């Protein structure tokens, strides 16, 4: 009946346990409350949620763990927490608090064994590796891995790196095009397609969504297993339910919103 159902994943930026970057739609009492927003997206039919922790302060770990705990108490769909995760202990605390997956990025580039350790300790299904890639003529695939939010070059070929983290123990790749992020011009389909065909774990396409058709393109042309977007959902342009309807109308299998 179903073989592959594409997931639609809203992404929320979180600073000190509060959702930031102007989520602004529907009647919610507190647009900064991650629990309330998670519930709204759950109602709209979101398949998972990603919380990206951008907290700079040193108490980030405690606030994020608290947030994970609060979300898990009220919202019964899977969610991933990423941002600033450096050690197996960071991962353990987030998982114990109710997060289903964690995503590691810079820390994995600095110390790839972290991916293996997390996969071994908690199972690869909860180990997401986030790859931020930019086009670059210095790598074989034409895409290079960047860290620190796209500021730091690593010299790593994005496709090779994806293969490497999967070999180490990643259960999923969260692939963001830094060229497209924030442009609303659609996913980088060449990048998405190159990575999704190189690995046998699910790939989440991210970066650049400005319309519902972009989500369709990410799946049909990019081969993504899941699509992630932020602004088109946060500013009330589209609901997750609308996104799923569009995808379904284009022949993509999705879990229908209830």
């Amino acid at each position, binding site marked *: 009946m179903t073989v592959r159902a594409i997931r639609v994943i809203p992404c929320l930026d979180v600073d000190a346990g509060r959702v930031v970057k102007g989520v602004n739609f529907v009647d919610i009492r507190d647009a900064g409350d991650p629990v309330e927003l998670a519930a709204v997206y759950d109602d709209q039919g979101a398949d998972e949620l990603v919380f990206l922790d951008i907290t700079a302060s040193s108490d980030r770990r405690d606030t994020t763990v608290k947030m994970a705990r609060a979300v898990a108490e009220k919202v019964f*769909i899977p969610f991933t927490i990423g941002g600033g995760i450096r050690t197996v202990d960071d991962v353990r605390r987030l998982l114990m608090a109710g997060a289903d997956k964690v995503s590691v990025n810079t820390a994995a580039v600095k110390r790839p064994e972290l991916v293996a350790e997390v996969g071994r300790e908690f*199972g690869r*299904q909860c180990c997401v590796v986030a790859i931020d890639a930019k086009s670059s003529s210095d790598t074989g695939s034409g895409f290079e891995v960047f860290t620190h939010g796209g500021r730091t070059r690593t010299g790593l070929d994005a496709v090779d790196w994806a293969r490497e983290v999967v070999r180490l123990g990643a259960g999923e790749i969260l692939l963001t095009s830094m060229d497209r992020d924030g442009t609303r011009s659609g996913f980088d389909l060449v990048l998405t397609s190159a990575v999704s065909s190189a690995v046998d774990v699910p790939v989440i396409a991210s970066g650049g969504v400005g319309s519902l058709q972009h989500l369709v393109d990410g799946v049909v042309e990019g081969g993504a297993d899941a699509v992630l977007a932020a602004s088109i959902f946060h500013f009330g342009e589209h609901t997750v339910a609308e996104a799923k309807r569009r995808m379904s109308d284009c022949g993509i299998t999705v*879990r229908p919103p209830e």
Partner: protein
Amino acid sequence: MPGDDRPLIAILDYGIGNLHSAHKGFDHAGADARLTSDRGLIADAVGVVLPGVGAFEPCMRALHSTGLDEVSLERIEAGTPFFGICIGMQVLFAASEEAPGCEGLGVIDRTVRLIPGGVKRPQMQWNVLDRQGFDHPMFDGLPEEAWVYFVHSYCAESGPEMIATCDYGTDLMAAMARDNLWAAQFHPEKSGSNGLRILKNFVTMAVCYAGVSG
């Protein structure tokens, strides 16, 4: 808490992974859910849940080091309603291809196998429960097309206990039941309202068993 007349559901705490969601899910389903490794409390519970995430071998190792492997077998043998979830389902089997040489609980004398190729592994997505015509109390109140959330690379060999499959390249065993023993390969505690309904159905069944037996 004293004076609490909600049914006591013991969620086996063997120190691994995300047990918080299962805990809150059962609370939400109307149970007095406790994360515990206390034998006395587990014996008092009307239902016992073996949740699980991660890999077969670390899970078996943790069960063994906490003695909860024996406790699980005792409870199943005693007829207490018992619900294995995800890896908690897989460890009910004799062995897994994921960990050659590592013995499972062996309640079901079959093997857990790698999902056949040609699909991405893990299966990490929502999928439809195909109940194959079975009308089991686990599914009471679910819509005809019930979607639930799966995360797994391995899957138990199907057999006479099977009550639902999902199609992921091939038909995989998604849920099974035998007398007091229920198990789900998917995560009811992460499957939104359908999943919460399944947890509630388990609590209802457990209360029913307790009424009959004592």
